[in-house]
């Protein structure tokens, strides 16, 4: 596998070696073959028909059929969600279902379901009409009853008055009027019905205007919303009765009723008939109700029988559709007897693919087996890393920046450790680390449950990064122990503090401070520093220097990675004119600074390192004076400065000239191209030259400018990237200060009151602040800063990231993409 000289192969360090393979599949076993390859999921098919539109392709009609079936399935799903049927999980037997049978079955089920739906709609409509009718009968009946009773009361009163008094002042025409009234009343017609409440006002107004006021409208509200027969929705309605006279008015009223969507119902004045009708309507309603319930029951049964197999069918249809999509990518032979497929596969999968081909041709009783052959191409293969659930999330971090070029050194390898480590440098508190650890362990324990269900956006992200969080928390427990902070409280876990009072009285501890009486505290920061006045100056100096040391180490690792790349691709130009001068430049300046830091710590010297570094550039020949850390330092500085100055043109100039020479050497006497045996390979090559090795046109100026930019970027980057690592110090400082504030100003303050309520409130505020600010916000910001340090400061030393991902045809992947 590893062709990179003496470097043995390592998981995840380089992407899998890939090969372009060609399959020649007999047409009768094509479907089976593609299906088996989909199960295997290790072959990325190339579209050989990219010039054809989807409709011109061989299997367009099958795809259409699959699309139709998918539509039916979607219809079932919709009906199921309406009917409250939950499709059961895909735990049923994997019985082989024939596609044709399934298609017929789906068609039958669909028409049955549509018929049931139509019938139940009709019944439902009739039912709601009856319900409305009943309401009208009741309400309008009330009108007539009250009107009649009041009329009879009035009449009785009048009669009583007539018979009782019979005086002179009683109107003479009363009797006449009354009899006239009586005759008129008979002629009055009326319309009764139901109207939506929000339309009522307009309805009344229009009626009034249309009949010029010659109507009498009586209406009353219905308390509960009524199901509208047409729309099937619950609407608030009013019962109305419109009295009118004359046929023309009637026609007008009818039209207006229709326009307003008011449902009219016949009504009789006679009380006896009314009661009869009400009982009749009630009887029919209950009859209809039972019919509807039976229909619903039937529908529910049908849906649940669909639901039990829905997932299986859905999967099958999706598989089938993807198979035909893939088959459409294959080019059909002129004899129409076989299909030719081309695609990328990892080298290790050769046997598996051949095995799948054999099984397919055996299972489909094909006389001829499929042919498997490896093609040679100059095209860049896709990048494929074999990751597991632990490494994939880290690889994702790298891929988010850019997918690695084929077989390029993968920063994902070191990211697994350095990413959580740099995070933890900014998040050093073992109390918070334990909280994170518990959270990530919770997610990991419930992994099976969560991975099968759909989660919210944020939860999904957290769950996807559960192993990153696990590593981050483990490292932050470690760095927390180093920083000696547990929710900002120090512990003397590793022996007694190295500091003590100068004398027995301990009088000058607040002015001159303690003195070191023992050996250095063996692990981490001495607990005595916490809360002292000199804590900040000490920690700042420590963390700042630590950031630079860690940064220089990581940048050196990045440059060494570029060496492994140069070695792997046998590019000695990059080794000699990029890797070596870069190493020299970085280490003669910042490597030297790191050495100075360590020497200063070991010797306890008071030299000013800023001054030293600045004057190394400004006046390198001056005497160092009291800033000298070791003899011969001035000369060493001169040598280093000289090396750094030489390294810059070393990086810039030779490489473009050497590339030019190499190009000329390669194309000497190559004025004629070799004739290719078949046309296809010419076409293939022509299309790949743009990003292949054959630099047909060598623009010297372009290469030179590219190198110039690269050099400037590196030289300036060396300074700015080193400075960028100071974010480790800044974030770590912010984290420890914030947690100190929460601990002292909230928890300790509340404790000081000696009051249980205040203490409870204090604890509550402390917990919320710790979780909200430190565990969520700070984790996020430290995560982002660690991400930046990896993407920019580490990866720009070696990572090209211009590859493309291997996306094999796999049934395991089609489940997610459709939804």
């Amino acid at each position: 596998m590893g062709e990179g000289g003496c470097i043995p192969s390592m998981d995840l360090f380089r992407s899998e070696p890939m090969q372009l393979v060609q399959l020649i599949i007999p047409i009768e076993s094509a479907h089976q073959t593609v299906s088996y390859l989909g199960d295997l999921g290790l072959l990325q098919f190339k579209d050989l028909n990219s010039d054809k539109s989807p409709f011109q392709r061989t299997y367009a009609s099958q795809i259409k059929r699959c699309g139709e079936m998918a539509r039916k399935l979607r219809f079932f799903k919709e009906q199921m969600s309406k009917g409250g049927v939950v499709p059961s999980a895909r735990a049923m037997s994997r019985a082989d279902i024939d596609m044709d049978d399934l298609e017929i079955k789906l068609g039958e089920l669909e028409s049955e379901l549509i018929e049931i739906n139509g019938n139940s709609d009709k019944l439902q409509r009739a039912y709601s009409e009856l319900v409305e009718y009943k309401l009208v009968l009741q309400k309008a009946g009330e009108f007539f009853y009250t009107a009649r009773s009041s009329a009879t009361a009035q009449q009785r009163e009048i009669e009583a008055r007539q018979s009782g008094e019979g005086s002179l002042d009683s109107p003479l025409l009363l009797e006449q009027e009354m009899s006239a009234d009586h005759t008129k009343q008979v002629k009055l017609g009326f319309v009764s019905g139901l109207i939506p409440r929000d339309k009522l006002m307009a309805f009344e107004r229009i009626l009034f205007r249309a009949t010029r006021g010659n109507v009498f409208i009586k209406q009353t509200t219905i308390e509960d919303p009524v199901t509208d027969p047409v729309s099937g929705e619950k609407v608030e309605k009013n019962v109305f009765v419109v009295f009118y006279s004359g046929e023309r008015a009637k026609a007008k009223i009818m039209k207006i009723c229709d326009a307003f969507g008011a449902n009219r119902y016949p009504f009789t004045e006679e009380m006896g008939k009314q009661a009869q009708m009400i009982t009749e309507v009630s009887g029919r309603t209950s009859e209809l109700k039972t019919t509807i319930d039976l229909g619903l029951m039937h529908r529910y049964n049908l849906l649940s029988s669909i639901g039990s197999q829905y997932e299986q069918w859905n999967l099958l249809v999706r598989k089938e559709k993807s198979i035909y999509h893939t088959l459409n990518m294959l080019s059909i032979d002129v004899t129409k007897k076989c299909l030719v497929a081309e695609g990328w596969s990892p080298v290790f999968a050769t046997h598996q693919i051949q095995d799948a081909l054999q099984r397919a041709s055996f299972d489909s009783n094909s006389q001829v087996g499929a042919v498997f052959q490896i093609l040679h191409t100059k095209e860049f293969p896709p990048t494929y890393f074999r990751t597991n659930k632990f490494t994939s999330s880290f690889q994702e971090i790298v891929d988010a920046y850019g997918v690695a070029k084929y077989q390029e050194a993968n920063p994902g390898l070191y990211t697994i450790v350095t990413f959580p480590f740099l995070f933890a440098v900014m998040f050093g508190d073992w109390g918070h680390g334990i909280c994170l650890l518990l959270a990530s362990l919770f997610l990991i324990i419930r992994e099976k449950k969560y991975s099968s269900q759909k989660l919210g956006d944020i939860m999904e992200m957290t769950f996807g990064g559960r192993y990153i969080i696990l590593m981050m928390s483990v490292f932050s427990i470690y760095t927390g122990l180093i920083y000696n902070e547990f929710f900002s409280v120090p512990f003397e876990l590793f022996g007694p503090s190295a500091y003590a009072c100068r004398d027995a009285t301990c009088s000058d501890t607040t002015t001159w401070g303690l003195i070191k009486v023992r050996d250095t505290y063996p692990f981490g920061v001495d607990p005595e520093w916490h809360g002292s006045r000199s804590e900040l100056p000490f920690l700042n100096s420590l963390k700042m220097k630590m950031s630079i040391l860690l940064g220089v180490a990581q940048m050196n690792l990045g440059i060494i990675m570029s060496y492994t790349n140069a070695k792997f691709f046998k590019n000695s130009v990059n080794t000699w004119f990029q890797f070596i001068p870069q190493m020299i430049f970085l280490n003669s300046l910042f490597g030297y600074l790191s050495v100075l830091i360590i020497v200063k710590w070991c010797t306890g010297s008071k030299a000013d390192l800023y001054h030293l570094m600045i004057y190394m550039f400004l006046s390198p020949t001056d005497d160092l004076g009291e800033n000298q850390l070791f003899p011969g330092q001035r000369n060493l500085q001169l040598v280093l400065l000289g090396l750094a100055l030489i390294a810059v043109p070393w990086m810039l100039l030779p490489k473009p000239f050497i590339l030019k020479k190499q190009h000329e050497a390669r194309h000497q006497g190559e004025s004629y191209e070799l004739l290719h045996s078949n046309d296809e390979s010419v076409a293939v090559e022509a299309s790949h030259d743009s990003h292949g090795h054959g630099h047909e046109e060598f623009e010297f100026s372009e290469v030179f400018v590219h190198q110039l930019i690269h050099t400037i970027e590196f030289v300036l980057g060396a300074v700015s990237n080193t400075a960028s690592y100071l974010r480790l110090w800044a974030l770590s400082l912010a984290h420890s200060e914030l947690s100190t504030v929460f601990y002292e100003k909230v928890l300790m303050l509340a404790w000081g009151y000696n009051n249980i309520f205040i203490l409870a409130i204090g604890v509550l505020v402390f917990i919320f602040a710790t979780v909200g600010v430190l565990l969520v916000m700070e984790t996020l910001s430290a995560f982002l800063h660690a991400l930046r340090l990896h993407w920019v400061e580490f990866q720009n030393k070696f990572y090209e990231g211009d590859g493309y991902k291997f996306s094999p045809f796999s049934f395991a992947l089609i489940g997610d993409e459709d939804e």
Partner: protein
Amino acid sequence: MGFLITTLIFIAVGVIASLFARICCNRGPSTNLFHLTLVITATVCCWMMWAIVYLAQLNPLIVPILSEE
């Protein structure tokens, strides 16, 4: 405990961890090398962190001055 002894402890822990990884999940040479790289990187990172903090406190230029309370 001096600088060297603790460094030796770190090395020992690293060696034990890599042996542990080698014995417990032996999955072919390339995966073993991968695990070894992870263990070495982690050990080096942790050791660097510890060494930096230890060295910084070796010869203190400033000492803790207690605040007046």
